[in-house]
């Protein structure tokens, strides 16, 4: 290869790689641009939580897209209340187990699972079945019930939540995977991916005192999860967020996956029969440019098992 040929090749490669994405010719080019094919949101229906996750993460190109070999990962389910798996208040343990297994198969060095619970943490970890499931899958289950586990950080660009105490493992870990459950909430109308992040924070009372929705959305200015996996298998449609009676739980058998925390919450709102515009923290989040609330325009991959 002489110099001229080399320069030619260089220029052509550079040209192709810069121009092709503009023309969205990814289908023509095939494998080297597979990453571009990723949907914004994957929605799965009509399967068991673990099977649905297998299908969903496959549509995203596998967990290897998010977790590199040797990384440490936080998997944050919702374990807030004393509720059995079919109570609809905590993330399905089968899903948590499968997520942890995928993360470990992707080569993660360590996987941490925790939540700052509302009920006594020892009992919620047990009753929800998550402690057992995560431990069996190889995760390290960590407490988050004392202030000493939390560290104060600054939230860039925040007007209310200027500083916040966050669990130290969120600061130390490489990858943050959010595994919320979708349920009704008496005040915020919906608990989903953004609301679930209140479980990595120490002082929730501050949120409640100073514009709950504003604080929930501003936390995402500090950190957005690398991946959100929304469990909508058992969905509490009323009288949430604690499992007060199982008669308000309907078995929807759905699951959503997205990198966009606003989009996944907007889609979650629809599952609960709400317009995304009704949920103020989702609206605030989209106004801050944290994601896309208008899910009609998104590339959604729908999978029915």
């Amino acid at each position: 290869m002489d110099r001229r040929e080399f320069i030619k090749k260089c220029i052509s490669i550079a040209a192709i790689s810069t121009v092709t994405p503009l023309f969205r010719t990814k289908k023509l080019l095939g494998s080297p641009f597979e990453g571009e094919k990723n949907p914004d949101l994957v929605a799965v229906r009509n399967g068991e939580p673990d099977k649905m996750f297998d299908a969903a993460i496959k549509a995203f190109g596998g967990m290897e897209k998010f977790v590199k070999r040797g990384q440490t990962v936080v998997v944050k389910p919702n374990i807030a209340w004393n509720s059995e798996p079919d109570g609809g208040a905590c993330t399905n343990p089968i899903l948590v187990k499968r997520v942890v297994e995928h993360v470990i198969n992707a080569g993660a060095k360590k996987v941490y699972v925790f939540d700052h619970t509302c009920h006594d943490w020892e009992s919620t970890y047990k009753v929800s079945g998550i402690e057992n499931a995560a431990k069996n899958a190889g995760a390290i289950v960590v407490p988050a019930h004392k202030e000493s586990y939390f560290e104060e950080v600054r939230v860039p660009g925040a007007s209310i939540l200027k500083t916040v105490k966050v669990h130290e493992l969120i600061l130390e870990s490489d990858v943050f995977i959010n595994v919320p459950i979708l349920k009704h909430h008496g005040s915020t109308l919906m608990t989903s991916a953004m609301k679930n992040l209140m479980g990595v924070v120490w002082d929730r009372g501050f949120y409640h005192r100073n514009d709950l929705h504003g604080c929930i959305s501003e936390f995402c200015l500090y950190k957005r999860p690398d991946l959100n996996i929304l469990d909508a298998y058992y969905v509490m449609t009323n009288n949430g967020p604690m499992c007060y009676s199982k008669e308000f739980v309907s078995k929807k058998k759905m699951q959503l996956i997205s990198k966009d925390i606003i989009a996944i919450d907007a889609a979650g709102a629809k599952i609960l029969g709400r317009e995304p515009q009704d949920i103020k923290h989702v609206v605030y989040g989209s106004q801050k440019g944290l994601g896309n609330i208008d899910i009609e325009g998104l590339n959604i991959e729908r999978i029915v098992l």
Partner: protein
Amino acid sequence: MSRRFKRQRVFIEIFIFLLIFLSFFRIFPEYLNDVPKRIQIIPVLLRIFSSISLLTIFTLISFLLLTFIFGRIYCSYICPLGAFQDGLIGFWRKVRKEVKYKYNPPMMNLKFLILSLSIISVISGSLYFIIWLDPYSFFGKIVTYVFKVPFIFLNNSLDIILRKFDFYFISSLEYPRVHLLNLIPFILVIGLIIFFTIKRGRLYCNSVCPLGTFLGIISKHSLIRLSIDSNCTSCGLCERVCKAECIDYKNKIVDESLCVRCFNCVSTCPVSAINYVLYYRVKEVKLDEEKKSGISRRKFISYITSLIAFTGINLFGRKNIETDDKIPPTPPGSGYLSRYIEKCTACYLCVNNCPTNVLQPSIIQYGIRGSFIPHMDYKSGFCEYECNICSNICPTGALLPVSVEEKKEIQIGTSKLRKDICVVYSENSDCGACAEHCPTKAVHMVPYKGLLYAPEVNNLICVGCGACEYACPTNPKKAIIVQTNIVHKRIEKGICLPPPEEKEELEIEEVEGFPF
């Protein structure tokens, strides 16, 4: 043969001490914590007043019989405070090589004054003396105030170190909330105990402890006694090692009402002249007549006066409590306030075993008559809906056992919402922390303005658990507080469901079964 007694005693003493000690640390499962509290005489005695069961009667009778046969074995084998003192004596022996005891006649007046004050106080409905003088309950306070703090400090520092290496099998614990006013009487009594112990061995047990005095009365006529044989060389070693100060080697007398059956003397005697034998083999020795004689008239009058005065104070205190309406609720299973006050000895076993830390030692929240007993502190936590540990663990029956299902129907208080401070009503901002935590939906959210939902209270189904008060974010005053039911009530059954939330039906276009 004789040396075996002491070794056995020390072994059993340490074993039972550890059982009792660890029952304060939520380490064992509940059924193991059950054992140590059931073999404590004063709690079992109080239990008979609150809930007679065959087991309690059997325990009590067997204790009386054991004491009648063997003497005050409770004091050296089972009493945790006795073991604590023995440990202290052992430590003091290490520090100071020379610790000598010498025979001292019993302080009859003091002993019986305290015993009768304690009995009168129980009868007149206040356990004030028992709270500080029952050895088991006082030991509970020692654990709470003394052992717990360094334990938690160690535990939490270990947690901080271990979690750097990803070991999470221990987790940080909450420090007990200690108020200075709780500490003052505690320090006075523990100071007295420590002073007595290092100076005069088991003097506390033989002069202050009402249980020691009571058991001493029985033990005086016990069947198996310590006797000094004729081959005694009068070396005085036994008297020197007798921490109960009950051996008078010159007259070869062992005062059976003081002896705590530690068997130090038996193992020390170089010629095996002191033996633990049946009564008929003991040589009868005449006690000093003076000691046996009663109290003088003047003393008797002052005695009676003080008792009357004390009863009066008690009744005065009782009056005080009914008019006070700012008192915290009593734990489920306590029934009503005055019953709770009359039964609780403040051993703090429940405080140490409460998973949410809602039970905290009170100061005078329940009035002077009920000072220092545990109260529901909704600043530290809230009562877990699915938990009944405190009612099961209570040694005295101040909290009667209730099943979880029963407990869910007991109303220990009701919630009161203050709309003037509530975030939703006063600032038109979303909150709902109270309704979120409410286990019965007595506090629930109703449509207020547009999409804003506001809390409302239905006290018919409120259990008074305090979850709403604990969760309420307002500062410094809570916008929702629990008002105490002096007498516990039951919630109304059947109206557990709040009206379902009205929602506009959205017209949803479904794509492949998905609403988006």
